């Protein structure tokens, strides 16, 4: 019964994610005060920003895993890297989607090229999708090595893309988090934090689930090979 440990840990994280997500949905839609300026559409902020930050956390995890793989050459770091980037791309795509919905409601258009964050996320999605092209065209140990190198390159270009887009365009995106703190009332901030923690828990749950699935797949493959080898001719 060696799989009880990871299974239980995933169940715990899953339960935590479900509870926090429910709390975040209830809090964001029913408890948090309505924005005087934007009305109900501002409530997308609780999810849009939380998803965006989670995607960056996923890419940061992949970057650290990439560096660790290059130093230690352990397969588990490659697995953490590929799963994190997969989840990061998913969260980035959701960021672009929710941002686009917010843009339509606030500015009347689905896409705004002068919004640096939305454009940066579109670049980031392109950048990290190409990671999977690289992976699919290289095999074996080289696949893990090149993936690790590219996760470092891609992570370095995220802030550069953001800065380049930001200075090139007039800044119309609502700035919620400034250097002097969060630009919103505490009742809003509480529900944002709940939503953010829920998203991070969701990321951890999905990461653990995917890693477990990969290990089970690998074990199953090895078992099949052993069975075929032991079969009488």
């Amino acid at each position: 019964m060696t799989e009880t440990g990871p299974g239980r840990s995933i169940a715990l994280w899953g339960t935590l994610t479900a509870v926090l997500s429910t709390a975040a949905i209830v809090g964001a839609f029913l408890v948090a005060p309505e924005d005087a300026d934007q009305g109900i559409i501002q409530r997308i902020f609780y999810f849009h920003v939380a998803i965006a930050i989670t995607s960056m956390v996923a890419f940061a995890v992949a970057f650290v895993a990439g560096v660790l793989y290059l130093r230690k050459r352990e397969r588990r770091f490659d697995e953490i890297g590929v799963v994190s980037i997969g989840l990061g791309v998913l969260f980035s795509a959701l960021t672009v989607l929710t941002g686009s919905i917010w843009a339509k409601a606030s500015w009347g258009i689905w896409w705004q090229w002068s919004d640096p964050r939305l454009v940066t996320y579109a670049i980031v999605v392109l950048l990290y999708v190409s990671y999977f092209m690289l992976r699919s065209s290289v095999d074996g140990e080289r696949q893990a090595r090149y993936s690790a190198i590219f996760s470092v390159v891609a992570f370095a270009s995220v802030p550069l893309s953001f800065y380049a887009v930001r200075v090139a365009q007039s800044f119309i995106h609502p700035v919620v988090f400034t250097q002097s703190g969060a630009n919103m009332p505490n009742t809003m901030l509480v529900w944002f934090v709940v939503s953010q923690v829920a998203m991070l828990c969701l990321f951890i749950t999905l990461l653990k689930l995917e890693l477990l699935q990969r290990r089970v797949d690998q074990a199953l493959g090895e078992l099949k090979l052993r069975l075929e080898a032991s079969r009488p001719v």
Partner: protein
Amino acid sequence: MTAASRQFRALLLKDLRLELRTRQTAIAMVLFAVVAMMAFQFGFGFRVDDTTPLAGGILWATLALTAVLGVGRSFVPEREQRVLDGLLLAPVSRNLLLVARAASVFVYLVVVEVITVPLVTVFFVQDPAATDFALIAVVCVAANFGISILGSLLAAMAVFSRARELLLPVLFLPALLPVIIASAGATHAVLGVSNDMPEYQGYVLFLLVYAVIFALVAYATYDHVFDD
């Protein structure tokens, strides 16, 4: 002259001599750049009266696409004639291989820019000033550092992959977008009637920061490309 500088000189001369004999990469890059510029003109140039505001964008989108082509092409002899195997067996630091490759890509880019920049100003800019060329030359040099360093790192990985010709643009272009944004911005700031020097300087500084960051990334990771 130290051993490293002798090795660097030999590697760079090897690339340049090969190019002078075959004349494949630089000429193909120049022709491609001219055709790409014309494609931009036919795509949207006819729809505006003054193309000056578009000139920076046309120049740098063209140069970025040309750079992808040139960087990929520069690795072809290495692959087809197994030059890389010989280089990897030689007692030369891997990072020196990267620096030499980046230097030869830098030279190819300069050759393309010497022809492309005047053509863009003739085709797309109304009343270009002589000082514009000097200012754009600085942008070219600053952008070339980042393009050649990152391109050499990514092309070294792409050369060992199955979909190499297709993979390099897919990997390289998204990472090159900040360079396109900043170079086009800097060119736009100084082309035409008004010169916005603070904006120009900011973009050039950004290009140098980009080059330094990717030089550090390449320095830290290039060894691992050839680990096998």
